[in-house]
């Protein structure tokens, strides 16, 4: 997928993906947990949209950083789903969503610790072996670190390097985290294992107080995040798919089209030039 800009597929505006000719993302991303085992009306919509667009998957409940065991029943269903919809990229979050045998349905921050890295690296390898595909893990937004013994930078980089997984670089999350935890976003990105970046997320957020931003996916992308995106794209040595996430407060479709066009303009400007130089 060269210079591809996709859009998260959400039920709230599912019909736009199917009926609106002006709205044509290059691919769609969906959460497999929201669709596995689903029949009837929504299954028909899923099949219609999957017939129209290439599909990537972005999971919610794998809980790679959980102290609990991996859920093999779920992984089996997931593997079938990825195959059925010819999914090119399966990404997940570098966080945990389950502890003490209870799902929380949200992304909780993993303690940035050496033993957590070793635990996660082993699990990533198990998942990759079973799914027979690389796992692409996302740097998540977090609002507090938990019993940390190293920086987020070191934690993320080591998980990626030691496991051999790929990185979903969420540029908005870097912006949010840099703001919330007082670090330099560009420096953070430049020190990541950028050769492992396989996918990019872009989204909007909500500033809830003078010193806290929450990653809501409920607003348009702000200019400083576009700037950080451009900075990131320049550092990558190969084109990767870019996804616009919008989960709440869905605007007029034209606004989403505008955001995707702006993202595409940036990647085309940078990657096309590099491609010409390469060849």
């Amino acid at each position, binding site marked *: 997928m060269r210079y591809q800009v996709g859009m998260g597929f959400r039920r709230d505006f599912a019909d736009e993906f199917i009926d609106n000719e002006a709205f044509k993302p290059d691919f769609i991303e969906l959460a497999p*947990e*929201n669709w*596995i*085992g*689903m*029949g*009837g*009306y*929504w*299954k*028909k919509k899923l099949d219609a949209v999957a017939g129209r667009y290439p599909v990537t998957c972005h999971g*919610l*409940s794998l809980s790679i*950083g*959980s*102290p609990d065991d991996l*859920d093999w029943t*779920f992984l089996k269903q997931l593997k079938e789903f990825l195959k059925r919809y010819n999914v090119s990229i399966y990404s997940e979050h570098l966080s*945990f969503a*389950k*502890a*003490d*045998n*209870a*799902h*929380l*349905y*949200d992304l*909780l*921050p*993993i*303690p940035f*610790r050496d*033993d*957590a890295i*070793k*635990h996660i690296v*082993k699990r990533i390898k198990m998942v990759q072996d079973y799914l027979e595909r690389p796992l692409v893990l996302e740097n998540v937004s977090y*609002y*507090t*670190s*938990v*019993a*940390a013994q190293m920086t987020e930078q070191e934690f993320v980089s080591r998980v990626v390097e030691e496991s051999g997984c790929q990185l979903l670089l969420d540029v908005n999350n870097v912006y949010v985290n840099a703001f*919330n*935890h007082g670090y330099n976003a560009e420096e953070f990105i430049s020190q990541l294992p950028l050769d492992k970046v396989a996918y990019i997320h872009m989204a909007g957020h909500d500033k*809830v107080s003078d010193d*806290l931003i*929450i990653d809501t996916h409920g607003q348009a992308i702000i200019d400083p995040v576009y700037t950080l995106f451009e900075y990131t794209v320049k550092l990558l040595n190969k084109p990767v798919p870019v996804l616009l996430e919008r989960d709440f407060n869905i605007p007029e479709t034209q606004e989403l089209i505008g955001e995707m066009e702006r993202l595409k303009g940036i990647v085309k400007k940078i990657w096309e030039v590099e491609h010409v130089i390469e060849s």
Partner: protein
Amino acid sequence: MLLKADTRKIQEQFGAVCRKQNIVKLQLSRPEALVHYQRLIRNIFNNTLITAFPITNEWLTVDDWQYLVSEFMAKHAAQTPAVWQMPREFVEFVTENIYAATLNKPALNDLLWLEWYEIEVHTMRDVEEPPIMKTIYQLNDSLIMNPYHRIINLTYPVHKMHADEAAAEPGDYYVLTYRVMDSGDVRFIEISPVHVFILQNIIEGPQSLPEIVPGVLSQFNFDNEEAIQKYLAFFCSDLVDKKILIIT
């Protein structure tokens, strides 16, 4: 174990604090941010449950609703990785722990199950659908059931009246919830125990009404076979029209 016991414990404590919405001292760089995790997770549970049970949510007082959500989050370890299936665990939790008695809302369980089965039938996994070869019912036609349905047994008639009024009319009510095959819409109809008997026979294997009627007569102590068969033929014909029953 690569994960050390103390890291595991910290993660479990963090999860527990989010579920129980209490304050525990954790090693956090920004302790004030914990409330945001608690709020975000509560919103996910609350919003998912409101979407699943709009009528129950509307019916209960805000305090009762919030109490149930809190109890569920704190005391139940959600098992499904799919958040849209979590409301089923909520109904089971509320039913098993007799919150209907705690809140003095006798019809609570029935209303929750009725709302849940609507979702369940709406989203029921697709199967190979039997072809509809014939649409006009005749008495000797062999019948099978639309695969997307549930027969629900209620004590309170919450399917046809406000849950508080239903509480005053306990009985033995049956509701057939089914998915319309073309549109995927879910509808329900009230049926009688005799209808349930007929449908259960048809579910066991393709049968025609005359094959089932002798069982109806003995089961329900009826003796006017002709009248019963006529009455049930009308029922079957109606269900064929609605594509709940399919002629094979």
